[in-house]
């Protein structure tokens, strides 16, 4: 058998030959030092090629591609946690202020929460007029809020009144921030 062609040696090393060819090649290699040497070199080359390190894609690649396909994805849990945290900080700050400067700041706070409730009341009325289907629901809501304001106004204890207002404001702000998440979109987008 004459000496092996180098491409055959590669095929042999890469397992791209038939079993008959393999036997023939091995037979020749056992008697030909030149071909054995060529094979040894190519084997080193192929083994080293296999050692070439794999390149890892960046961890955010999948999200970046998905953002391009379906737009930025919002993590609703994150949005809710952010809203709750902001409201909690606000409430905590309000309570501290109330404790420290009872009269002056508390009246401002009371006015603020009253305005907030009244605004919601008007918005509720407007929506009720706009959407006939849910008119009844909003009227009831308006009634409840109205009654609540009256109830609060009729309460004699200022401290109890303020505590209720703080809780109510926390709930309302949580809801509002939860809905108005758009300004925070970039921060809240999943990374």
């Amino acid at each position, binding site marked *: 058998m004459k000496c092996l062609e*180098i*491409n055959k040696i*590669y095929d042999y090393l890469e397992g*791209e030959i038939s079993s008959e060819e393999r036997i023939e090649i091995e037979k020749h290699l056992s008697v030909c030092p*030149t071909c054995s*040497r*060529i094979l*040894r*070199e*190519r084997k*080193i*080359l*192929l083994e*080293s*090629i*296999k*050692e*070439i*390190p*794999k*390149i*890892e*894609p*960046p961890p955010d*690649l*999948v999200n*970046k*591609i*998905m953002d*391009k*396909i*379906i737009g930025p994805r919002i993590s609703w849990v994150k949005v809710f946690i952010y809203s709750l945290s902001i409201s909690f900080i606000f409430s905590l700050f309000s309570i501290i202020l109330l404790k420290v400067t009872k009269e002056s700041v508390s009246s401002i706070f009371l006015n603020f929460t009253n305005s907030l409730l009244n605004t919601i009341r008007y918005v509720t009325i407007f929506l009720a007029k706009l959407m006939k289907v849910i008119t009844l629901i909003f009227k009831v809501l308006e009634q409840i809020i109205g009654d609540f304001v009256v109830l609060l106004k009729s309460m004699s204890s200022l401290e109890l009144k303020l505590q209720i207002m703080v809780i109510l404001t926390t709930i309302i702000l949580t809801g509002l921030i939860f809905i108005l998440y758009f300004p925070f979109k970039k921060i809240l987008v999943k990374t």
Partner: protein
Amino acid sequence: MKTDDKKLIEQVLKGKKEAFEMIIKKYQTPIVNYLTRMTGNYNDAIDLSQEVFVKAYFSLNSYDFRYKFSSWLFKIASNLCIDRWRKRKIKTISLNHSLKEGKDFYLQVSDKKPSPIEKYEKKELVKKIEKAIDRLPLDLKELFILRHINELSYQEIAQIKNIPIGTVKNKIFRAKERIKYLLEKEK
């Protein structure tokens, strides 16, 4: 093609966009490896990888289920890569350049002296090979990468590049011998 891919593609085509995320997760590493080796620049490769998957997503309707999905994806990657070169007018060697080269590198090697390849330390040799790959003519480089970095079959490469399997084998053989020649020349 693998059933997994088929199922995922069918889900995407039915409107379940999230199924495409699984496809990206599965193929991001081979595509990034292919493009990094091809462009020689990681950031360019990442940009191109994004383009590849976005293009694949929006052309998924034209995907033919008879072929392997990976082949189709690599075809997109290859086309985008070549387009990028053309647009940027990066200094390139003609795609047919290596075909016209008359030198048969392997014939020049003497079999009497010990080969320099055997003298290299393994780590050093791997680094030298990486550099040598970079110096290959584009067509040889691409086929070599598809075969030895992405570990695709000759059949699959022939499908991706739309050339006969014999040509693929021949060019990859030439690429390996060119690498060996460059390594020996350097030592």
